[in-house]
C-alpha cells in the first residue's frame, strides 16, 4: 500500500514546488525595474532652476545633506497622487525635497505648483529628459534618496505613499544622517 502511494508523491512534490514558484512570481511586479544606480554616485548635472531663471542647480550643491530628488511633471497624473504626501513632508522640515521637472513646459510646471502646492526647495528643469536618462528614469514619478556623499541609496518607483515614507524612506534618511 505504501509502495503504491509513493508513486504519487513525486508528481505531488513537483506540483507543490511549481505552486511555490507561481506564488512567488505573482507577487513580483515586472513594471518595477530595479535600479543599478543604488549605491553609486548620483550622476552630475547642471540645470536651470524652475522658479529662479538666473539660478542653476547641481547635485554637488547638496553635499553634506541627505535629500530627496523627486522626478515630476505637470502632465503626470500619478504625481498628483503623491504630491500631498510630499507637501506634508516638506512642512515637517526633516528632509529637503528637490524636484527634477522632467520633459515639461515652464508655464505648465509653474501653474501646477501654484495650484497643487510647492514642496520643493527648488526644481531643476530637465526639459528634454536627458538627465532623466542618466538617472535611469523610465516613468514618472520616481524618487531618489541621496546621502551626504552624493550617493544614491534608494530609488522609489511610482508615487510615494505615507506607508512608504514611514516604513522605508524616513527610517533610511534618519539612519543616513548619523
Amino acid at each position, binding site marked *: 500500500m505504501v509502495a503504491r502511494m509513493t508513486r504519487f508523491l513525486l508528481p505531488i512534490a513537483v506540483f507543490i514546488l511549481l505552486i511555490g514558484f507561481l506564488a512567488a512570481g505573482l507577487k513580483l511586479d*515586472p*513594471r518595477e*525595474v*530595479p*535600479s*543599478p*544606480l543604488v549605491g553609486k554616485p548620483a550622476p552630475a548635472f547642471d540645470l536651470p532652476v524652475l522658479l529662479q531663471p538666473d539660478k542653476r542647480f547641481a547635485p554637488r550643491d547638496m553635499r553634506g545633506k541627505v535629500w530627496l530628488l523627486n522626478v515630476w511633471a505637470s502632465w503626470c497624473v500619478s504625481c498628483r497622487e503623491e504630491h500631498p504626501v510630499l507637501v506634508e513632508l516638506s512642512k515637517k522640515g526633516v528632509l529637503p525635497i528637490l524636484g527634477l521637472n522632467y*520633459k515639461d513646459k515652464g508655464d505648465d510646471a509653474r501653474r501646477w505648483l501654484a495650484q497643487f502646492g510647492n514642496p520643493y526647495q527648488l526644481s531643476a528643469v530637465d526639459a*528634454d*529628459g*536627458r538627465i*532623466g*536618462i*542618466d*538617472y*535611469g528614469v*523610465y*516613468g514618472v514619478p520616481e524618487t531618489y534618496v541621496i546621502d551626504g556623499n552624493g550617493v544614491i541609496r534608494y530609488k522609489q518607483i511610482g508615487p510615494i505613499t505615507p506607508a512608504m515614507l514611514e516604513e522605508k524612506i524616513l527610517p533610511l534618511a534618519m539612519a543616513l544622517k548619523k
Partner: protein
Amino acid sequence: MRDLSEKLRCLVCQNQTLADSPAELAQDLRRQLREQVAAGRSDEQILGYMVQRYGDFVLYEPPFKPTTLLLWVGPFILLAAAAFILVSTLRRRRRQPEEPALSPDDKRLVERVLGPSPPPERDGRAR
C-alpha cells in the same frame, strides 16, 4: 542603428524592443543611440551605457551570467529530465511479466467460443 535598437528593450512597453516601441521614452533613447553612434562609439560601449543606467533588464536578450544561468539552462534541464523519466518508464514497462496464462476453466470457455487454439510457438509464447 537598427541592430542596436533591436537589442534593447523599451521599459515602458516592456515586451517591445526599442526599435518597435512608440513610447516617448523609446524616442528619447533612440535619439541617444543615434547621437552615440554618430559620435563613433562602439556597440559594446553604447549597450554598456544603457545597462549602467537601466540595468540588465534593458537588454532585450538576457545576458549569460551566473545569475541568469538557470533562466538559460533551465528549459534544457527540464527537457532532459522529462526524457529520462520517459525512457525509464518505458524500460520498466517492458520488464514487467507477460499476462499470466489462462486457467484451465477459462481456456475451455475460450475454446468453446473460438475453436481450439493452435499449438504454442517454439519460444513458449501463446499465439
